[in-house]
């Protein structure tokens, strides 16, 4: 096997990004993935295990892992941490009551060493709902400024319902991962 075929092999992997999407149940993860992929969002059941979606985005292939957020299955999130390039944390901005829960789960996740190198995108979802907290309010509640300074992160308001904000979020995430990992291009 010559060097060039090695390079080709590595390169092909290089173009792939592994993205883990988590958050409390009902936050809208599955809806976001289907919406960004242009699929029908009218019948979505709560996720019992996980879904994987492969999406070609710019010149990258995103493997998106959408993992169910019901309390019982949150302990399985750790099965998916390995080799994660990007982490998307989805918040239901209209569910004020469970924001403490949401903060606690996010804090736990960020302690995880296997995720320490991952870029973090926080989607403040359901912005179309009247009374939803704004992204900057969510940022305060989740105390994002206290995060480890080495972490690349961004919070973006979005609505999986209207599609607003989704591309902006994915653009940032993909660019950020690309600039960290694929410096060679």
């Amino acid at each position, binding site marked *: 096997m010559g060097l060039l075929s090695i390079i080709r092999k590595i390169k092909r992997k290089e173009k792939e990004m592994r993205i883990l999407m988590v958050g409390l149940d*009902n936050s809208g993860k599955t809806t976001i993935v289907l919406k960004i992929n242009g699929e029908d969002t009218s019948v*979505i*059941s*709560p996720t*019992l295990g996980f879904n994987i979606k492969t999406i070609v985005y710019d010149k990258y292939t995103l493997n998106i892992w959408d993992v169910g957020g019901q309390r*019982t299955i949150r302990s399985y999130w750790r099965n998916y941490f390995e080799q994660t390039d990007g982490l998307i944390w989805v918040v239901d901005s*209209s569910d004020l*009551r469970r924001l403490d829960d949401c903060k606690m789960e996010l804090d736990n996740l960020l302690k995880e060493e296997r995720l320490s190198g991952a870029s973090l995108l926080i989607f403040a979802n359901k912005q179309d709902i*009247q009374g939803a907290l704004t992204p900057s309010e969510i940022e305060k509640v989740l105390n994002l400024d206290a995060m480890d300074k080495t972490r690349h992160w961004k919070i973006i308001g979005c609505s999986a*319902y209207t599609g607003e904000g989704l591309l902006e979020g994915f653009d940032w995430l993909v660019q950020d991962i690309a600039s960290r990992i694929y410096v060679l291009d």
Partner: protein
Amino acid sequence: MEAGDRDRSRDPSSTAGEGSDSEIERKRAQMIERLSNLHQARVQSSAREKSDSAPPSESTEAFLARFSDSKREIETRIADSKTVTDAESVKSRLEQIAKSIEEMEKLVAENSYFLPSYEVRSALRSVAELRQGLEVLNSELVPKKKFSFKSKSVKKGLSLSRPVAAEGTDSEPDTAEKGRFKARESPGFRSRTGEVLVKDFKGLEVGEFTISDLEECEVRLIGRVRAIYVHRLRNCKVYAGPVLGSILIEDVEDCVFVLASHQIRIHHAKKCDFYLRVRSRPIIEDCGGVRFGPYCLEYEGIDGDLKESRLDEETGNWGNVDDFKWLRAVQSPNWSVVPEKERVGTVIIDNKMSG
């Protein structure tokens, strides 16, 4: 896959013409070095992280071999079970098969980071097929059992003493809503006792609606909303028109709900009846003694509201409940169907406050 590689620019034959000067050569050499360093680093770090658990093979072949072994094994077990008649061993067989399928899914998840995505998807498809096979087996073996179970558990009072729900999650702080966002409360009914609470959403742009901390109240919601959050109700009745998004219910006891929504999630409910129309499968978690029946609400203009919310069709999903505390093929002991003669019948509401 090799054949589909269109990345001709890295093919020596296509770069030859670009002038293979030493500058390009040097850059390429650097790139190779950095790439292999990066690759090494990734492999090493994943090996390091994995060393405390199962030894990583990181080989697609090894994964596929293991995966297809257990797939075959499960298929055999499903086939073998078709002839089993003894109820007890049917039950334990079904449960064991379900558990093995879960383990297969976990195997896929754990190995997914190095598997080609095609393999991941086809492995997941196999898992789904096995689940389906199990479900078929289940319906072949235990249809009567399932039915008799349901009619047994609906006897009032029987399930009341079963200590199902709790499990410590109740220690969840109740402070969130009392804390930061008191100043900005969303529309809703909160902290009432013994009242009839009526809200007509017609002509209003209502986003989410919250119903919390009620005792012995009757809530009537007429018209459409995007989302409903229900928290801490005792001895209440809640009747609501269609919800375009989802309903989230937590910590309710001795209540009756008549609801229509695209999604419904129920956590920590005890001894409640739910009459639902849902587009997707309703789910319960940490519930006990909950029963389900079809939606049965009437108010003036409800047909139009249901239609606009795409909830005019009976999907039958009210009976397809997924219990997150019982991810097995056999019927969950935590929920049942309300027998027809015990159902509430059509509930007619209007927006007048007449008791």
